[in-house]
Each structure stands twice: as C-alpha cells, then as structure tokens.
C-alpha cells in the first residue's frame, strides 16, 4: 500500500514488541477510548473486542454479556509481536465495502514503535454502485496531487 491516500499515526511504547502486541489486541477493550468513537454508535458502544487469530472479529460491543454489537471488521493478518491487519467498516456502508487497518510493531530502543496505517478509502463507493470495473490505483495518486495542491495554497 504505497498510495498516499492513507491515514497514518504512530507512537512509541515502553515495552517489547511482543508485549505491545499482546496489550494492543487482548486489552483493546481497556484502552480504546469511547468518547472519540465517532465511527459508529458512541452511545451504545460499551467496549471494543478483538478475537485473536486470522478471521477473528473486531466488534464494537453493545451488550457486554452476550457480546452483541456492530462488527467493525475481521482480522486478515495476525503475527504476534510484528504485525496485525484487520478490515474496518462503518455502519451504513455496503457489506462488501471496507477499508483496511495495518498495525506494525517494531523494536525501537528499549521500547516499541507502533504504527497504524488506515487505507483503502477508494474501495468505499456507497454512493456509486457498479463502478468497480476498470478501477486502478490511480485514485490515490490523484488525491495526493490535490491534497498537495490544497496545502500549497
């Protein structure tokens, strides 16, 4: 994913990559901030749950007892201590539409650099059924030109 239509963020944490991965995934319900959760239902959402392993679900839990809630995405890559990839969709999108979040864990000094890349926005076409034919990666480049232009002004 080298197109620039990607949102990135990173942080350094004071523990080994394996520990960072473990805390990021198993304890996501404890650190994930609810207030800023404007993606889906901030009122009903109680916590986030991530099931371990490829195919595991990422769920915005509305009922902690049953685990019911909105399925945000599924795990595509599960490499403890190194890399985590999951799909990410928003309520209201078509079932086939989803973006992709990649989280990398890299040793940095005594700690770990955790980098998030959130891309795949060009796959979201809620307003335009049937436009997938002939799609290429050109969109990302185009957006890059224009955000550059916008910044230069």
């Amino acid at each position, binding site marked *: 994913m080298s197109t620039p239509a990607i*949102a*990135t963020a*990173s942080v350094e944490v004071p523990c080994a990559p394996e520990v960072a991965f473990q*805390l990021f995934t198993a304890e996501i319900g404890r650190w994930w*901030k609810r207030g800023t959760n404007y993606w889906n239902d901030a009122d009903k959402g109680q916590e986030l749950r991530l099931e371990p392993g490829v195919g595991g679900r990422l769920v915005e839990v509305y009922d902690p007892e049953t685990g019911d809630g909105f399925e945000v995405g599924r795990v595509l890559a599960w490499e403890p201590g190194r890399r985590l990839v999951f799909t990410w969709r928003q309520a209201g999108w078509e079932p086939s539409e989803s973006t992709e979040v990649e989280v990398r864990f890299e040793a940095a000094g005594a700690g770990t650099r955790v980098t998030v890349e959130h891309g795949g926005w060009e796959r*979201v076409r809620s307003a335009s059924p049937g*436009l997938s034919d002939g799609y290429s990666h050109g969109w990302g480049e185009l*957006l890059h030109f*224009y955000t550059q232009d916008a910044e230069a002004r």
Partner: protein
Amino acid sequence: MANNIDATLAALADPTRRRIVELLRERPRRAGDLAAAFEISTPSVSRHLRVLRHSGVVTGHEVADDARLRVYELQREPFTALGTWLDQVQAFWTDQLGAFREHVEQATRAEQ
C-alpha cells in the same frame, strides 16, 4: 463519512473521469476538447462530465448555447474535503494510540 465525500469518491472511482480530472488539472477546457482527447464517443464523455459536475468535482460554464463550448473547470473544495477527511482519520488514530501508550505505561508500571 459525509455524503459529499462519498460523491467525490464515487466520481473519482472511474478511470475515464480520473483522466478528465487530470486534463482539467492543467487548465479549464471545453467539452469538445475533452471529447477529442478520448477514444470514446462524445455522448459518453458528456455523461462522465455530468457525473463530475453533479458531484461538485467540476463546474461547467455556459459560454454559448452550444454544449460543446461549455468550459469545464476543476473545483478545489472536494479535494480539500477529502484531505480533511484523511486528517480526521489520522487524528482519530493518533488519539487512540495515545490512549494505548497510557495503558501500556500503567501495565508496565504495575509489573515493576
């Protein structure tokens, strides 16, 4: 995601329309000039221009009664809005990663 961003993404999710946008990026052009740049028919170029216009990505200025003389120009706002959207996503993740670091710091402190 705001509807207008959906419309922008939809408008750009087509190779012909992206090519039109690239041409308009150089300078405003007449519909007839744009049609000449493509191997597809003039009516289908017109259809693409209509999609771009309805999404707000381009504007078309009528200079005469002849539609071929209409001058198309790129609009900056939809692209700025897309950039803003990505900035918001980025801010969201930066915020969440900040919360994650706090959690790690608490967890590792508790261990020591």
